[in-house]
């Protein structure tokens, strides 16, 4: 199979309606790769976590800023970058701790970054107070052959 490449970038307002939109865009991008149900669920969940973080934390639910999402396919490698120009994260290490949340009053579980880590293969977070946040995640999709046949070289 050829090493197919595709890139899609979108900007959307930081409102919760767009969480589903972001998932749908990524799912549609992945369709030609024939991901398994689990792979698709993994990536959709990770995207949802990153976008939700940008909306709730980055922009403090103020629906004023834009969230940028870039989805790149390079053969089997899926790279997703979600960035915002919001408040940024003061202590990234703490933010990434399982069950830690800065917004318990909103019933946040504190599992967002843990899920991104668990469902993707790599995760990197760049952020500084006042400078916004960039979350980059990658995952390799297995490309199954129809009927489980061994691929022809």
């Amino acid at each position, binding site marked *: 199979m050829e090493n197919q490449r595709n890139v899609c970038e979108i900007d959307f307002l930081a409102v*919760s*309606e767009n*969480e*589903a939109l972001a*998932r749908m865009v990524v799912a549609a991008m992945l369709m030609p790769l024939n991901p398994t*149900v*689990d792979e698709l*669920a993994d990536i*959709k*969940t990770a995207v*949802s*976590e990153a976008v*939700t973080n940008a*909306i*709730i934390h980055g922009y403090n639910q103020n629906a004023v800023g834009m969230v940028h999402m870039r989805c790149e396919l390079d053969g089997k490698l899926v790279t997703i970058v979600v960035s915002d120009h919001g408040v940024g994260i003061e202590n990234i290490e703490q933010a990434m701790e399982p069950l830690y949340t800065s917004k318990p009053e*909103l*019933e*946040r*579980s*504190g*599992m*967002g970054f*843990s*899920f991104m880590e*668990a469902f993707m293969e790599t995760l990197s977070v760049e952020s500084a107070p006042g400078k916004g946040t960039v979350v980059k995640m990658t995952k390799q999709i297995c490309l199954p052959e129809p009927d489980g046949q061994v691929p022809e070289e």
Partner: protein
Amino acid sequence: MKAEQFEVDGKTMTIRLGEDLDHHNAVYIREMADCYIEKYPIDRVVFDFGGVKFMDSSGIGVIMGRYKQMSYVGGKVFVRGIGKSVDRIFQMSGLYKLVTRLDAAEEA
């Protein structure tokens, strides 16, 4: 997209979840659930996942929030109709320790 449905029967509130259990829907579910719990003497919350195709960590917050509310009044939270992808989220987050699974045979 199918919306959430709320049903109160005696002290039991059943929340039939829609297709997505994300932050967007979580906010609505929390507001509605709080409304009913304030209004009725509810001590059983049943989440019906039969129609759910997607859940992320925001959904965990919804379940944990209702679990806390029910534990204040000595009540319980139940779940049913959990499919494979939601099951993974439940396993990973340890939610099964907080809720009781109902299958069709056990239901009253």
